[in-house]
């Protein structure tokens, strides 16, 4: 073997190719990597935001895992050990999920409705994600809704907050919608960091029936069942800093028996 003999040659020769040849080569590389191509409309330069930062962390973890060989369950700090101690319950299963995932997608929050301090209790906040552009032939293994909690003034640091996330299953006119509990966490009011809620069940419903995707609803309560506004306890929404905005992340695994295209 003569290794690396042509290193750089193809790299430089790419610039000498004609426009059509360049397009053909780009198309071939896209096809090999399974990439859909440049997004449309052409994306402007985006400032750093929460989902890309999280995904970059995940990418570095996955790359490190690949370098160390298969079966090494290395997960980045931000994924397996988020700042809030309550999230440690997710560390073990998520570690396996990340290692075994073939595709991971983050979804930006599209809609945010709120019943806050100006309205009657209970207070809540709703989020919605569009899960329609999904990888073909892959199934969901896990899905998380991630929201950032900041420190706020005027709160007792040792107070425990119960934050629960529900799937909105059916909306009714002038009445409360049907809700199904997805996940709940108890968080000390005096802590800051990312909270991750398991929304796998809801994402599976939405994938099977996209029209049933009515989003998720979040409630915050004290230990004595007093409803609090999400914004008041420091949960960051769409109007918060870009690096701390809520998003959803879904893990996919390729089907064990992939359908091979006919040749």
């Amino acid at each position, binding site marked *: *073997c*003569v*290794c*690396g*003999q*042509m*290193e*750089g040659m*193809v*790299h430089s020769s*790419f*610039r000498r190719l004609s426009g059509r040849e360049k397009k053909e080569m*780009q198309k*071939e*590389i896209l*096809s*090999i*990597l*399974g*990439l*859909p191509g*440049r*997004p*449309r*409309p*052409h*994306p402007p*330069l*985006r400032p750093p935001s929460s*989902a*890309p930062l999280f*995904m*970059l962390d*995940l*990418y570095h973890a*996955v*790359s490190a895992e*690949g370098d160390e060989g298969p079966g090494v369950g290395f997960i980045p700090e931000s994924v397996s050990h988020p700042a809030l101690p309550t999230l440690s319950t997710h560390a073990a299963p998520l570690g396996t999920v990340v290692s075994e*995932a*073939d*595709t*991971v*997608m*983050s*979804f*930006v929050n599209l809609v945010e409705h709120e019943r806050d301090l100006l309205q009657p209790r209970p207070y809540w906040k709703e989020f919605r994600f*569009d899960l329609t*552009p999904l*990888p073909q032939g892959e199934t969901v293994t896990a899905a998380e809704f991630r929201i950032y909690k900041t420190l706020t003034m005027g709160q007792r640091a040792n107070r425990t907050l119960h934050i629960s996330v529900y799937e909105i299953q059916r909306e009714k006119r002038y009445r409360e919608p049907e809700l199904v509990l997805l996940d709940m966490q108890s968080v000390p009011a005096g802590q800051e960091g990312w909270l991750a809620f398991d929304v796998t069940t809801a994402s599976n419903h939405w994938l099977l029936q996209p029209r049933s995707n009515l989003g998720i609803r979040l409630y915050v309560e004290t230990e004595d069942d007093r409803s609090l506004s999400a914004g008041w306890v420091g949960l960051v929404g769409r109007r918060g800093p870009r690096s701390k905005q809520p998003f959803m992340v879904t893990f996919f695994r390729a089907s064990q028996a992939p359908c091979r*295209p006919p*040749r």
Partner: protein
Amino acid sequence: ALRHNTQRRKKHKNDLPHPNRPGLFDQAPVSNGRQACKKHELYVSFSDLGWKDWVLAPPGYSAYYCDGECDYPLGSCMNATNHALIQLVVHLIKPDEVPKACCAPTKLSPISVLFYDDNNNVILKKHRNMVVKTCGC
């Protein structure tokens, strides 16, 4: 395409080739003006391709390919392992016409690509056996 080689000795029809029998290109270097199999490196740079704005990571990746008498053209739907297997099968059927596969990837490594889609979602796509690290040539 099948490459006809008239210089090889004729075999009886029932003389099935032994799997370990040397292939046509097992003896290196190959003479008669043929180019011996060599492993080359190709660096695919996403910035050179003009994809830097939507492919977040990596900046590019190194791919290896074999070039020479035992080359396996890597297409969009076939990897080198598939080519080696198919060539071996065809060699067993037509040992006089098709050389035994003497080169195949022996170590494949994964790569991951992080990119934006049309809806500003970020996708991390993992390819488990993508880049040929070493081959048998």
